[in-house]
């Protein structure tokens, strides 16, 4: 039972962090139907900036502020320079554009990290392992998980209660109608990209604490994909639940199965779950089905 509990709780915490990556994907998809493949690179850049600032001796708040400034600027300019001119293009071109942006960000990261190698986001948070009864956890994971949940709550609140949120919901329902109601899509896209930049900042910091500031963060963007597809590309609640589900499932199953079948289940399982989900519910468990009309 202890064994199960430990797998479960750790999977849960990891799952919340997967959901955090997925949140960045959902935000942009909801507003513009674009699958942002640069989500990992955005987190990488954010965590690098924060780590670099901290490395230069900036206090934590200043380092985070530096990250905020960079990510807001990034979100604004990327929307302005790349996505606004691309309005109306086929979705696949937009996705390719995010790949271009990912490469661009990688280039920046490579140049900077070559000059100033940094290894860790050091914000003075506790890194001890925590023992809750039989379960051992990393305190940084716990903090990360809480931050992630908080962020979900915040974004959910913005969507549900604010004017911008209302406009965003309108746009994700129907772009043309929203346009005709006088909602400025440009403005909203900028807001969404800045928002996604800030989400990337949080996930970059949290993951940077977990695995170090390294290229792996960019690869993590892939982990978000099965999550959003399971939860539905346009559902934040779906992202959260699917993230937790995948985190728990992969950890528990890998824990029991790995010793039996010689490993490898962990990287696959999300995709297997996703494949099955695609069969059972082609548009995810919380996503909206696209009904075709003739």
């Amino acid at each position, binding site marked *: 039972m202890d064994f199960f509990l430990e797998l479960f709780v750790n999977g849960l915490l990891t799952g919340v962090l997967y959901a955090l990556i997925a949140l960045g994907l959902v935000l942009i998809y909801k507003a513009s139907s674009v699958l942002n493949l640069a989500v990992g690179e955005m987190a990488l850049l954010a965590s690098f900036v924060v780590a670099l600032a901290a490395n230069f001796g900036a206090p934590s708040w200043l380092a985070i502020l530096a990250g905020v400034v960079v990510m807001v600027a990034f979100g604004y300019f990327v929307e302005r320079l790349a996505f606004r001119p691309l309005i109306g293009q086929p979705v696949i071109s937009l996705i390719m554009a995010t790949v271009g942006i990912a490469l661009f960000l990688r280039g*920046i990261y490579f140049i900077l990290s070559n000059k100033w190698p940094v290894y860790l986001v050091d914000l003075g948070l506790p890194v001890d392992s925590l023992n809750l009864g039989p379960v051992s956890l990393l305190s940084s994971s716990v903090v990360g998980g809480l931050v992630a949940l908080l962020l979900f709550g915040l974004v959910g609140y913005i969507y549900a209660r604010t004017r911008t949120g209302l406009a965003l919901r309108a746009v994700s329902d129907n772009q043309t109608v929203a346009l005709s109601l006088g909602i400025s899509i440009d403005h909203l896209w900028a807001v969404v990209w800045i928002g996604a930049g800030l989400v990337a900042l949080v996930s970059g910091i949290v993951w940077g604490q977990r695995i170090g500031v390294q290229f792996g963060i960019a690869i993590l963007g892939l982990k978000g994909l099965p999550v959003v597809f399971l939860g539905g590309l346009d559902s934040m609640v779906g992202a959260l639940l699917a993230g937790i589900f995948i985190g728990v499932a992969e950890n528990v199953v890998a824990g029991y199965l790995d010793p039996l079948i010689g490993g490898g289940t962990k990287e696959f399982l999300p*995709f297997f779950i996703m494949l099955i989900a695609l069969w059972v519910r*082609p548009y995810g468990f919380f996503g909206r089905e696209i009904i075709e009309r003739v």
Partner: protein
Amino acid sequence: MIYRETGVHHTTYRTDMALFRVPLARWSVAGLLVVAVVIPFFATDYWFSAILIPFLTFTIATLGLNLMTGYAGQVSLGHAAFIAVGGYTATILLIYDIPFLAAVVLGGLMAALVGLVFGIPSARIKGLYLAMATLAAQFVLPWAISRVVPLVVPTGLAVAGGDTVYPPRPNLFGLEIDSLFERYFVSLAILVVMTVFAMNLVRTRVGRAWVAIRDHDVAAKILGVNITHYKLLAFAIGSFYAGVSGALMVFFYYGVAHVGEFNLDLSLKLLGAIIIGGLGSIIGSFFGTAFIILLPIFLNISLTFLGNAAGFQVSSGIIAGIENIVFGALVVVLLIVEPLGLAKFWQNVKDYFRLWPFSY
């Protein structure tokens, strides 16, 4: 190719429906082939191994992906995995003394079969959701390969559990394909055949059905196109091309089957190649491959060159960073400037010359 329609009149549908309708187009294709045949007599080893052979082999893969994604609209993020299946199958068959051409074709067929299996979800889902199903192939197939290959290959470089296999040297009707020169010509010949096949497919019943499904699947079905059948066919043929190119990559380019090469990065690159080259365009596949596979190399070389010319001592890390930045920005700029890809750009040039010199 260059199109000059002026003064060309077809009197039968047969000639009007030929692959190249205009004499000048025929001539320029022939000219291009002559160039392709003459180049190797002047090419250095560097051009062969670093530019020509990779270009030829990768183009076959992009052609397949373009048939599948560009024409039939079935987005695939697992193309590299199908390439791996073809490469490994062909290698193993060659080890078991199957003749070269048969091994290549069977490698392609094996990839087609696997592609078919991963294409099954296309019956129900499409677009991004389907792309994700193919992404699963990218994670499942290499795993399967690394488990299966050690069981099938009698020898293997690593003592146990090794999935890296050196293929024996292929020979064509008793002639060993050994030098870069020979590798180039065999790849070129196969590419030409595959290109002609692709062009034939897209101008006939099959190609029209694919585009119909891509543009409006409901209408296609109501017009009597069996959508599932044609989607699966697209998966099979696209994967067949991938498999053939995998075999050639292993035999002629890498010289070794190493599962690590066929990763998600390659899949994304190929997808980028067809988007940038032009979705639903055969010649776009050629442009796109050149852009994605060769441009980074060109960028790297020319940036180093420029850096030195300007008298800077630049670390290769910085150059690579700039290369990434420039390349990423180029992708975005190109998508903004010419969303239909390089093929459309080419089309504009062609249109300009269509009635040249009497373009009024």
